[in-house]
């Protein structure tokens, strides 16, 4: 009996190569990711992401809408951080129009964009913990994310699909109550981030599951088109907020955290450090917030305040014109990119001089990040795939457009 067992162990065990479908309905495949894995035993030979389950033809829809009408569709791209998508789109249109928004508008936008970075990274960290078996992190991350969503609700009434930014500024001014609550968050958040770090950073299981998993060198990261925290975790010192500053980022004091090894653990550390920087940025914006209008003074681009529309005939006509026929945008093409929580979010708009974009291409970071899955999981174990996917943080509203 014992001889038989030894015989089996001493022989080379060869297994038939098999194909495993991870997703599109799988608790640890984010959203509707369908990974087709070619495996030899438990080793990954090839990982082929099959995407498109959430494709809604956003770019085709954009070609048939007026410029301001497309803002709500951008919320549904990366629905974890809708504000960043709003920002990317309105900035591209403003670049086409050649307008510069007001100081107060810029500050409000920066706060909103950084809050959405917090909300995106919090969910990423929480879901990542859950995927690797550290369930409590998700509960804590959700608690803080709730605070961020409450802030969004104070800002614009919506928690997920904000449509808060509009071409020429933002929809509503910030209220003193928002400022106060935001300040509370800024004071509260660093301590909470320490809490996550106590749970994860030194945790043996977390380290074992993430260190040296899904390693990408700096050259590979650039070649594969990784973006945002995933790029910086490989040690590439690049952040559009600092290197191609938009809004008021050139006036703010913040660091760009970098990783060294390019593994999942570094991607986690970079995200945590980025959240700390976001909190600092929000704090500085609150301190420096100037008075003044939050929209540009251009009636053809900015609709009148809603309360005037009910009382004033001129405002009603103005509102009607804005909603029904929009505004013409000069002919030309622009590519405008921002640093969204997932990476470089770019909008390439070709205008033919009419009220609707001739072509609108969205360069979505999740799509580009996901492309690296094969490179990062090859030769690893099936269990590592889960860590790699979580560390890439794909959101399928954005990836599938």
């Amino acid at each position, binding site marked *: 009996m014992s001889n038989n067992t030894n015989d089996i162990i001493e022989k080379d065990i060869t297994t038939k190569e098999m194909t495993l479908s991870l997703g599109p309905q799988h608790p640890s495949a984010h959203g509707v990711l369908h990974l087709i894995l070619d495996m030899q035993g438990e080793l990954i030979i090839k990982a082929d992401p099959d995407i498109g389950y959430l494709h809604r033809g956003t770019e085709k829809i954009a070609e048939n809408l007026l410029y301001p009408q497309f803002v709500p569709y951008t919320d549904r791209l990366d629905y974890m951080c809708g504000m960043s998508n709003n920002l990317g789109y309105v900035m591209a249109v403003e670049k086409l129009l050649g307008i510069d928004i007001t100081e107060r508008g810029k500050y409000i936008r920066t706060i909103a964009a950084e809050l959405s970075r917090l909300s995106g990274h919090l969910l990423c960290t929480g879901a990542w913990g859950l995927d690797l078996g550290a369930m409590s992190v998700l509960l804590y991350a959700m608690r803080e994310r709730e605070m961020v969503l409450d802030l969004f609700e104070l800002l614009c009434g919506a928690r997920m699909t904000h449509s808060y930014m509009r071409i020429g500024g933002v929809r509503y001014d910030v209220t003193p109550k928002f400022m106060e609550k935001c300040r509370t968050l800024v004071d509260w958040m660093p301590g909470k981030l320490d809490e996550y770090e106590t749970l994860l950073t030194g945790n043996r299981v977390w380290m074992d599951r993430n260190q040296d998993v899904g390693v990408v060198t700096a050259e590979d990261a650039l*070649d594969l088109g990784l973006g945002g925290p995933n790029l910086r975790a490989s040690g590439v010192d690049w952040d559009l907020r600092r290197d191609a500053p938009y809004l008021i980022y050139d006036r703010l004091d913040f660091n760009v955290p970098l990783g060294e090894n390019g593994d999942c653990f570094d991607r986690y550390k970079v995200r945590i450090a980025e959240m700390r920087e976001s909190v600092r940025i929000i704090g500085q914006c609150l301190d420096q917030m100037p008075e003044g209008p939050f929209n540009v003074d251009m009636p053809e681009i900015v609709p009148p305040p809603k309360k005037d529309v009910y009382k004033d005939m001129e405002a009603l006509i103005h509102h009607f014109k804005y909603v029904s026929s929009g505004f013409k945008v000069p002919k030309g093409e622009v590519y405008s990119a921002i640093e969204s929580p997932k990476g470089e979010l770019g909008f*390439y708009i070709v205008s033919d001089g009419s009220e609707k974009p001739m072509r609108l291409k969205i*360069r979505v970071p999740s799509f580009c990040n996901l492309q690296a899955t094969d490179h990062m999981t090859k030769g690893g174990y099936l269990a590592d795939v889960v860590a790699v996917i979580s560390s890439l943080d794909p959101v399928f509203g954005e990836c599938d457009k």
Partner: protein
Amino acid sequence: MKKQAELVLIDRIKSKFPKAVVDTIVDRGEVTHVIEASEIVEACKFVKSDEELQMVYLSDVCGVDYHPRKPRFEVVYHMLSLKKNLRLRLKVRLAEGESVDSVTGVWRSANWYERETFDMFGIEFEGHPDLRRIYLAEDWEGHPLRKDYPLKGFKDDLNPNGIEE
């Protein structure tokens, strides 16, 4: 300073490819070169390796349909230089049915971008390792981002509200 960067982007490429650069457009601070389709891979290799440009990061590849203009399509490449902090746009113009060489040999990230362009416009990339649809189903007919593809799609059994072909 800004102007100087523009000049570098214009001169380096124009002097290297005097014949292949069909047109150069500078608009809103963005430099665009329209390149002969046959030279695009050489141009991409050059902008990636050139000391003054170092465009190591391919941001995006996408198609644009200018129907009914002829040639109808444009394939647009957006690239980024991290060291020099420059952005550049290269374009090729293609008529319907024409194909262009794939730049997957220059940047691996072009793989999915080109698949997306193929899926949405039906533009074929010669030498692409794995050219198949990425978003739509394999048996999908037509290429939705073409201007002659209706928003509601074509009428068939599964899409009774579509437009008659």
